[in-house]
């Protein structure tokens, strides 16, 4: 079916991305080779980056923390995946659902609460010291890796569990009847088969931690981290190197792009997991062992959620600056609301607009990716909508600011630039999740409609969309809840009057106003968890598609 309608749609989406993403990135690229605006071409920024300790340390730190987090999440996620998929632990569906939550909730809240608990004046820190354990604080490398592990282990866990549970049982049985012991079978057969999935998950952990802004901003303290340094360089009025923010942005893109290329070129091709035939045998454990195994699983998934429980609880406590008083109080909420309800409105409004636009572009894009495979325009679209994955929020914020602060289209300083940034970041997720729904939808259904006399375009609305609606809704809700906690590009782009909840929270943390911060944190948590409750049914399939 060569319908000009779809070719035109693909072209339109590509043009939008060229205009709103590729040209802005190209401007950063250009800026990275200039020491001042409109200056001559020079490699000075890159030379400086390599020679000044505080600069190259930021590169080293980012990569080191990314790799270390990848390793720790493997250590947490893989055994958990094995237990949940192979042993009869209690409430598997619940474990899996709970495990997805840290990915949806703002990592910044997690960092904020861990500081309240484990900071220099933290509650647990005091307790540890009182019983004689010389605990310093969570700040620094350890804290960053710790927070990222709690936050990002689900990537490894979910990827591995889907690999484990789609592996054909007969493959392991074949090894066993050939005389291989269970342990040897695991090492020589099962593990190599799930390894590509584990590494894919670990790469996602690496990318997410490298581009994360909020966590290193407060837990890294003075430690140079690329995503934070780029922001500081860009926002400081009298930066010693005006072009340095651009250079850091490009380096950040290069790191994430490398890992994405490794994933697509190397790991995706080594995906041995076939469509499931026989489900792997679930081993029945004795009651005691089952209890121990189940407790272990719940300990991990609930431990990762501690910050969110704590944030909810302390939001109802009396606070004076950074000091918490254990009395029930609605003071924080009253203060947050009376000062202005605007940030709540802003968050919801911007997330809704960006989600709707993402749907409008993303669903047809997903359709083109699946139903028009092996056409030039579908291939181009595939590459183009992959780009936002490799552009960290901080970098996108910088790119959009410099691209639209002058010229024919001035968006810098308007709310539209925020909606634009969110749309660019989330549309690929909507497109991917639409595509994955469509993969499962037999194209014969559409052909049946067409052969009965309904045109391809009408068929898309009468049949295709109708069958996708549940999945699309789930994708939209996921996009919406992750937009409201988007910090890294918002912090660069938000104009006066358009501060969002996460920005208010950020300002609260920075200015030691923990009361406001915790109030906004718990509104954010509720705004994330309540919509997710509606789609728990879809969550699992959806999650793997987004990965």
């Amino acid at each position, binding site marked *: 079916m060569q319908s000009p309608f779809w070719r035109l749609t693909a072209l339109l989406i590509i043009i939008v991305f060229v205009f709103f993403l590729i040209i802005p990135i190209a401007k950063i690229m250009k800026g990275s080779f200039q020491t001042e605006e409109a200056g001559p071409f020079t490699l000075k920024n890159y030379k400086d980056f390599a020679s000044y300790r505080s600069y190259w340390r930021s590169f080293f730190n980012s990569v080191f923390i990314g790799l270390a987090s990848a390793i720790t999440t493997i250590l947490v996620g893989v055994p958990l995946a094995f237990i949940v998929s192979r042993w009869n632990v209690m409430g598997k569906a619940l474990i899996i659902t709970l495990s997805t939550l840290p990915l949806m909730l703002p990592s910044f809240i997690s960092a904020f609460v861990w500081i309240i608990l484990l900071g220099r004046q933290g509650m647990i820190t005091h307790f540890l010291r009182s019983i004689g354990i010389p605990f310093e604080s969570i700040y620094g490398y350890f804290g960053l890796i710790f927070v990222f592990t709690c936050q990002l282990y689900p990537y490894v866990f979910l990827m591995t569990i889907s690999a484990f549970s789609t592996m054909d049982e007969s493959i392991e049985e074949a090894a066993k009847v050939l005389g291989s012991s269970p342990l040897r079978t695991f090492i020589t057969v099962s593990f190599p088969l799930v390894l590509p999935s584990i590494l894919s998950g670990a790469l996602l952990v690496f990318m997410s931690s490298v581009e994360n802004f909020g966590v290193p901003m407060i837990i890294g303290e003075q430690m140079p981290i690329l995503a934070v340094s780029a922001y500081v360089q860009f926002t400081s009025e009298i930066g010693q190197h005006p072009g340095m923010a651009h250079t850091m942005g490009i380096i950040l893109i290069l790191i994430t792009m490398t890992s994405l290329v490794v994933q697509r070129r190397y790991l995706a091709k080594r995906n041995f997991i076939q469509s499931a035939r026989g489900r792997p045998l679930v081993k029945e454990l004795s009651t005691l062992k089952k209890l121990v195994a189940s407790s272990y699983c719940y300990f991990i998934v609930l431990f990762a959620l501690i910050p969110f429980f704590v944030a909810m609880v302390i939001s109802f406590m009396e606070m004076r600056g950074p000091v918490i008083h254990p009395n029930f109080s609605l003071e924080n909420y009253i203060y947050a609301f009376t000062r202005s309800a605007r940030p709540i409105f802003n968050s919801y409004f911007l997330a809704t607009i960006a989600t709707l636009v993402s749907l409008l572009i993303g669903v047809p894009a997903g359709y083109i990716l699946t139903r028009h495979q092996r056409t030039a325009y579908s291939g181009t679209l595939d590459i183009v909508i992959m780009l936002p994955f490799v552009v960290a929020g901080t970098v996108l914020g910088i790119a959009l600011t410099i691209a639209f602060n002058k010229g024919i289209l001035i968006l810098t300083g308007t709310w539209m630039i925020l909606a634009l940034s969110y749309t660019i970041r989330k549309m690929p997720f909507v497109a991917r999740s639409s595509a994955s729904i469509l993969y499962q939808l037999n194209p014969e259904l559409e052909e049946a*409609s067409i052969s009965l*006399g309904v045109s391809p375009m009408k068929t898309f609305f009468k049949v295709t969309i109708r*069958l996708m609606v549940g999945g699309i809704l789930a994708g939209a809700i996921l996009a919406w809840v992750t937009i409201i906690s988007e910090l890294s590009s918002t912090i660069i782009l938000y104009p006066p009057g358009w501060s969002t909840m996460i920005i208010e929270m950020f300002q609260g943390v920075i200015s030691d106003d923990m009361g406001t911060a915790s109030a906004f944190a718990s509104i954010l948590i509720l705004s994330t968890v309540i919509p997710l409750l509606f789609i728990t049914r879809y969550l699992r399939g959806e999650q793997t598609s987004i990965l």
Partner: protein
Amino acid sequence: MSLRVVGVTKRFGDLVAVNKVSLQIERGEFFTLLGPSGCGKTTLLRSIAGFNQPEEGEIYFYEKKMNKVPPHKRDVGMVFQNYAVFPHLSVYDNVIYGLKAKKTAAQEIGPRALKAIEMVRLKGLEKRLPSQLSGGQLQRVAIARALVVEPEVLLMDEPLSNLDAKLRVETRSEIRALQQNLKTTTIYVTHDQEEALAISDRIAVMDFGKIQQVGRPWEIYTNPANRFVAEFIGTTNFFEGETVSKNEDSTLVSVKGVELAIPRQEESKGSQISFAIRPEAFRVLEDTETSLTKGLFPLKGRISSVEYLGTLTKYEIELAEGVILKVNSYDIEPDKLKQTGETVEFGYDPKRVLIYKD
């Protein structure tokens, strides 16, 4: 004539899926495209439906050239391999889907849909959703939905391949009966030769994108045009050898040292010749019988395998080193069943030999 395919070629990259195919299908005919998977039969069907564009050739419905007509304006009904019943619509809504698309008068829709549902014996299930139906019922919905719009041509793409063996046989005779009643020109795709023989008016056997033979079922079976058709339709014994001598009505051919009789050929002694004998052309003789009295060409061999299938028994008989014949024997009493290793006499009528000169 109702439908014409003229020199149609369809390529996918370097692969020529359909290669210069020409066909003429009569009005009301039940026409089957038969061939192994990957032979191009489904691609050709989809070209006729309009789901792909042939690079060369034309497709005509009556005298109207259809190449440029998009699939939704072609007036074909199509039944898909995986049924493609819309899962979000009830049986009734599935059936009226095409009627509504074709802007059928409102008062006509109801009666026509009910008639179609009754026709495929789904009366009473109108309100059911597809998830509440069995595979066989889904197939009937798909057929009703395709037929209710009274299409010019009905296209069926392996519609029975997802049903179990028994249901497949039942449904195919129902499809045949429906088609006979409605006289809808039908093109049916299958890889199952028995199915094709059972329901078709005519069959086109395809391989490697080309039509190998077109004919009525018995013509294709008894007189296959080439080795591929002979081997694809039923089983056969295929021989290559050189002529040794001839008499009035037969020629003797030497196949790996064994001499076999075929109808008289005019070629000179020593020419190469290929021929085939169907397993059922042989007759295993009882002790009291002799081949001469029955007018059969006599053979003698050792049974190397026996496969008892109830209505028939399949023997493999070794005549000489490397010459093994497949021989079918029908309706034998149990005590006359031969055993592996036994030496038997059997024979065949040379007139039933199929000669391939190409």
